[in-house]
């Protein structure tokens, strides 16, 4: 065994699509390098080998949606020096938080013929509502280079360098023409957290908010713009109800526009 003890990394999955943890395998060039710098101690999607905790850093993907997971997240926290949530599911409840606006029994009946078999909670909640979280990385999915930055920051005991402005600002930096001004396309860029590098506007479509609300978004003025472009109230509600539907500002703004 190597004499220098490498920091132990664990990756945990809750209700999710696995896209965020897959991002870690998608940093192809850096993967073997990362594997050299950390001890991947618990990452079932990539390895059979499981090393017991405690772990220096836990990456948590997914939201809490079952009674069992509500307990499990505490176990994860107890074994982790740092706990970082990755992606919209873990930081905001994900697309599955659309249940929070409905009647879960009705949902269960629609999908499953034997609803009595399904043990699920009424709400899909972010990890933060259950345990202390040391850092939250946004996105559905997370940006893989941001993920690498967070990894290296925590392993080197420094603060991750993740900017907190809006997607709208990223467009300005990139020099993208504004899709709303030029084409009248609805775009949540002004209220959405930066991080993706303005992918959607670069592909001629509006941002649909997959990185969730930025800090202190001016949500009312955002909705005013959407109304001016011609969106109806139900359309505005749906714009906010996607992968970050349960994130405070998006939830409040969608409820505000509900009849």
């Amino acid at each position, binding site marked *: 065994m190597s004499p220098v003890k490498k920091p132990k990394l664990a990756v945990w999955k809750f209700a999710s699509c696995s896209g965020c943890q*897959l991002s870690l395998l998608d940093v192809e060039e850096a993967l073997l390098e990362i594997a050299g710098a950390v001890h991947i101690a618990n990452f079932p999607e*990539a390895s059979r080998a499981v090393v017991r905790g405690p772990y220096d850093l836990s990456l948590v993907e997914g939201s809490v949606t079952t009674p069992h*997971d509500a307990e499990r997240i505490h176990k994860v926290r107890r074994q982790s020096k740092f706990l970082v949530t990755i992606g919209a599911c873990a930081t905001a409840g994900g697309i599955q938080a659309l249940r929070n606006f409905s009647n879960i029994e009705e949902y269960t009946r629609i*999908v499953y013929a034997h609803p009595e078999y399904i043990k699920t909670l009424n709400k899909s909640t972010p990890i933060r509502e259950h345990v202390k979280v040391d850092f939250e990385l946004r996105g559905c999915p997370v940006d893989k280079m941001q993920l690498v930055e967070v990894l290296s920051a925590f392993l080197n005991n420094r603060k991750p360098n993740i900017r907190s402005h809006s997607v709208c600002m990223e467009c300005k930096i990139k020099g993208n023409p504004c899709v709303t001004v030029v084409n009248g396309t609805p775009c949540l860029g002004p209220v959405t957290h930066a991080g993706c590098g303005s992918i959607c506007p670069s592909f001629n*479509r509006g941002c649909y908010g997959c990185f969730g609300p930025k800090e202190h978004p001016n949500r009312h003025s955002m909705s005013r713009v959407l109304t001016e472009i011609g969106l109806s109230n139900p359309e505005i509600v749906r714009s906010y109800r996607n992968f970050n539907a349960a994130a405070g500002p998006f939830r409040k703004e969608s409820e505000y526009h509900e009849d």
Partner: protein
Amino acid sequence: MKTDKTIKVDYLARVEGEGALYVKIKNDKVTDCKLKIFEPPRFFEAFLRGRHYSEVPDITARICGICPIAYQMASSQAMESALGLEVDGQLRDLRRLIYCGEWIESHVLHTFMLHAPDFLGYQDAIQMASDYPDQVALGLKLKKLGNDLMTTIGGREIHPVNIRVGGFHRAPSETELEPLIERIEWGLDAAMGATEFLSGLKIPDFEVDYEYVALSHPDEYPICEGRLVSNRGLDIPIEEFETHFEEIHVKHSTSLQSRIKARSNYLVGPLARFNLEYEKLPKSAKDAAKIAGIEPGCNNPFKSILVRSVETVFALDEALRILKSYKKPDQSYVETKPSRSTGIGCTEAPRGICWHRYSIDDDGIVTEAKIVPPTSQNQSTIEEDLRQLIPTRLELSKDDLTWMCEQAVRNYDPCISCSCHFLKLHLDRE
């Protein structure tokens, strides 16, 4: 002496999603065999109701981070069939092209990172890399090529943003795609080399008499469209899926299992496509099959790793063909007004057919959604494989037998996040 054993794998590794395995052996017989799914349900079919049809592809993508394009494409095509839209010419090619990217990425991820370590006795690809550094590096580079193909066309590799009902938000220019040509030419060579490496793996002897189901197109290896066919005479349009297939609730089983009503369980995915549609593979892929030592009639599920490698060659060859003839279309999508109707879509995800049905109203709002992903279709076949495999391997130690069972499950590259949202779950734990 007769064997009594219980094999329990509480958390299946190197598969996507949360699953477990439980096998009970009594007097040399498998008395219980369950591939358990404890992935929490996410209720996609429920919350798709009430959404506008145009929002559906972005939402269904989030069912699975490994094969988002399969979901985006099947739901887009279902909506197009509901709307009476025809997507053809360069737009159709562009779809096939981005889908090739997903096949490459997903297949290479599985063969090199998730499955090859089983054949060589490593816990994971990172361990494997210390003895096979060049091969793992080659795999990673090929995987990246698939990702870059998706990113160039779709904006990012996981949950690409550019796919929409009717086509794309923005069709890429020729100059954007051009740099990929040279890299894919490299990739084709590299994938041949990868196939050669994989053909040296020690493949367990094991054969099963499967019913294979895949899409079949008159002149193309199937990706986006076709009729549903099988080696036992099934030949139906995708619209008749529900007439011929059903999902039944097996007693004591924790999940819905798909079967062909007239017969039984079946297999979808690379092995099915290869056996049914081999003739439509390009020469390069047929050459790869020769290198791998496989031909149609290959009924050994452990050889699916070789078939994935052959299909990787196919996907690269197909991508190259499309890239070389690509002309940016004048319109990046086609569009029309919705009216009340129902549409069905089915595409070949890397793991097999992914079938969708949606009903929409006059405003284009979804009133009903049904999705049948590949892994839930394979689930009972996976269990059946184990039932047949274990009695032939009773001489193995418990650890080795457990690993062998895991490896057999991974033959299917199961995608549990996909399957679970449509399965009945019973969280009964031992």
